[in-house]
């Protein structure tokens, strides 16, 4: 029963990883940009929510109404101001630029909020759980996170599949020059993709801040887990990223079941195994943002 529990908890944890990773997956899928600032942006969103809770009367979940639009605007500005320019210099440039943003961002957070660890209070929700049997129970907040991850990824998928702008985004992904021949403004489309990606990571960051303690440099770990989730599932495919997140979560909790010190290591080993054996990811997709 311990093992069943480990898998169950892993799936719940995986929901958080999937939510953290889907923005990374979206940006890579549309623009081939690996955004190394992804983790620090998640943490920045958590700090923004923390600041709002401590300086206003806003309840924790209500901060999302402010945090998500603000971070989406940050994403838009980053794309217009930095990444679009960097893309003109070749594929490697956005990677380097995002690395710079990650370093600067973490240091700015350090300046503004000190290195103390924080968390966003959510009251009883943090500890309440649903009993499935005598040995099995699942945390309500973890369950909410997983549901939110599935809804966000499903929503993104539907947006890409069925809306005019979503189709335009897929066209830009397939062939950005041909897309401009359809009347699509490539740079605006990229800015929109990044805005959406950063909005999802802001949501994920606030949820992260509600479930655990975070510090200004916590983004490094977030980036690694998000990156692993994307690679395990398969690049540029949103459902694959969900699966990747779940696999990573299960690997970590099952590893921890073997020995509590092995949790994170087990996740890394699964990631490496996937890179070696199936570098295209567990869910193979033929250039389809499915």
């Amino acid at each position: 029963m311990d093992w069943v529990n480990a898998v169950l908890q892993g799936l719940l944890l995986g929901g958080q990883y999937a939510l953290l990773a889907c923005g990374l997956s979206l940006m890579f899928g549309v623009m081939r940009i690996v955004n190394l600032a992804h983790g620090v942006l998640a943490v920045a969103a958590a700090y923004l929510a923390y600041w709002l809770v401590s300086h206003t009367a806003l309840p924790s979940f209500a901060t999302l109404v402010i945090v998500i639009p603000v971070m989406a605007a940050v994403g838009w500005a980053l794309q217009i101001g930095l990444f679009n320019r960097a893309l003109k210099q070749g594929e490697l440039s956005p990677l380097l630029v995002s690395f710079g943003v990650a370093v600067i961002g973490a240091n700015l957070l350090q300046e503004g909020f000190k290195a103390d660890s924080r968390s966003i209070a959510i009251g009883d929700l943090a500890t309440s759980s649903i009993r499935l049997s005598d040995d099995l129970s699942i945390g309500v907040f973890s369950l909410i996170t997983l549901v939110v991850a599935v809804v966000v990824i499903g929503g993104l998928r539907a947006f890409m599949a069925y809306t005019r702008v979503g189709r335009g985004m897929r066209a830009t992904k397939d062939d950005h020059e041909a897309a401009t021949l359809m009347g699509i403004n490539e740079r605006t489309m990229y800015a929109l993709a990044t805005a959406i990606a950063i909005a999802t990571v802001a949501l994920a960051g606030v949820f992260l801040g509600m479930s655990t303690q975070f510090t200004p440099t916590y983004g490094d770990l977030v980036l690694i887990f998000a990156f692993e989730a994307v690679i395990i599932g398969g690049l540029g495919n949103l459902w694959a990223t969900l699966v990747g997140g779940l696999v990573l979560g299960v690997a970590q909790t099952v590893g921890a079941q073997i020995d509590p010190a092995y949790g994170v290591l087990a996740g890394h080993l699964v990631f490496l195994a996937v890179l070696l054996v199936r570098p295209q990811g567990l869910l193979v997709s033929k250039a389809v943002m499915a």
Partner: protein
Amino acid sequence: MTDTEATALLGLTGVDVHYGDFQALYGLDLSVAEGETLAVIGANGAGKTTLLKTISGLMKPTRGTVRFAGRDVSRTATHKRVRSGIALTPEGRRIFASMTVEENLKVGAYGRRPGPWTLRAVYDAFPLLAEKRTRRGGFLSGGEQQATAIGRALMSNPRLLLLDEVSLGLAPVVIADIYAALPAITAKGTTVLVVEQDLTQALAVADRVQCLLEGRTVLEAAATDVTRAEVAAAYFGTGGVPAQRGAAATIPTTRQEA
């Protein structure tokens, strides 16, 4: 000619275009009247594709102007030109491979220009596309891709349709199928500029032909006024003197490539 220039839908004046140090077009003048079909012909490297890229905005002239519907669009971004009514079916078709035929067509309508072209109208013009509507672009034959590319361009309801090498790499029967749709397109008032290496097709569909050689115009005439020998001389740059009769036989008519 001055008549058409006054009312021209598209007018290029003294256009130079460079790829780095290499100059592809030399002071090119070109004009297309509304409702007219112009065929631009020439051998490989004559500058035909560069011309279309310059009109659509994918390349910018280093000198000269491109005017469309009375406005100077020389510096206008491609996506804005599309929205003002210039559509290009590019060399190589450039179908969105992960998207179905129908999705490709819908993306063509991205700019939401009003006009006669809808999914239904495109399927009527290209019946083969209606059967393949759920097939992904990456799994289409060359002819299906070309039809999708033209349909996709039409979905933007262009005033000016630019067709680049429609016949390239297609079997004669497929080329005939695709060109069969052209009258339906011009009947809706769309102005067409077609670039071709296939002289027979070009002369059959066009009101007027303009022949390019190494980035310059070497012949311009109404399609009915020109003989194949004259065109052949211009095409190969044999100095305007009609070559011996045998030369006409060497004109590439239908190119079929891998």
